[in-house]
């Protein structure tokens, strides 16, 4: 087992463990912190698959911006205490069983005996900025501009919704 395979198993275990912690912790602040760990593990997977740009963007956008937003909202609302009253126990169990069944069925359906092999680190530099930028600003320039409009409307929406007093 070489180094990249070892990294794959380590990062996978980290991602699964910390995402389990996200949904089991009572205190929402711990959930946010474990979610950040999950995002770092997924960024590690991106690096292993030669998607360096996406790895950095994932860290900057998710772990850096979105999670800070979550933490700010939690802290502003003073929710960092274990205040969640428990839902009906049957509902809890049925939710867990439904999610587990979905997982079992999808894994059983997608399991093949001779899977294609993804070369880890391997050749190829499609994940570099030069390549992605060329594609983004030539072929995909219209979606890019539309996403800027999306951001503008999201910004306006957030400001309007968050404004105090109507």
């Amino acid at each position, binding site marked *: 087992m070489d180094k990249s395979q070892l990294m794959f198993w380590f990062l996978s275990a980290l991602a699964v463990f910390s995402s389990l912690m996200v949904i089991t912790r009572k205190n929402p602040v711990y959930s946010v912190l474990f979610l950040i760990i999950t995002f770092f593990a997924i960024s590690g*997977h991106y690096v292993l698959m030669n*998607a360096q740009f996406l790895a950095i963007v994932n860290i900057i956008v*998710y772990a850096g911006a979105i999670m800070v937003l979550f933490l700010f909202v939690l802290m502003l*609302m003073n929710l960092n205490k274990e205040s969640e009253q428990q839902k009906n126990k049957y509902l809890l169990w049925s939710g867990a069983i439904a999610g587990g069944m979905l997982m079992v069925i*999808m894994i059983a359906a997608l399991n093949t005996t001779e899977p294609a092999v993804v070369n880890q680190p391997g050749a190829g530099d*499609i994940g570099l900025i030069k390549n992605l930028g060329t594609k983004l600003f030539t072929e995909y320039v219209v979606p890019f501009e539309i*996403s800027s409009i999306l951001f503008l409307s999201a910004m306006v929406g957030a400001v309007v919704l968050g404004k105090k007093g109507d």
Partner: protein
Amino acid sequence: MPITYYIFLAVIIFCIGVTGVLTRRNSIIVFMCIELMLNAVNLLLVAFSKLHHQRMLVLDAANVTAGTESQLFVFFIMVVAAAEVSVGLAIIVMMYRAVHSVDINFLNRLKN
């Protein structure tokens, strides 16, 4: 690594997200579980991008940009997720001001 390992990892993370949405009541944690599901999909897209790139290189050595598209899709998913989070958290803040709770059961009376 066989591609199925990546598929299984993404399915496991996705289903953890689904379970979180179904079982938790705190709407912020439900929101975080949605982020978790989006990330599982992103991981799978990147894995298939890598696989596709490898395959196309074997067929045609000059085709060095095959598989770029799915990485761009991941980029757009991140863009949409960021926009969604900003609006969603604003809605949660608004709900908290109205009912002083972020319990998901109160979301059925968003107005007033």
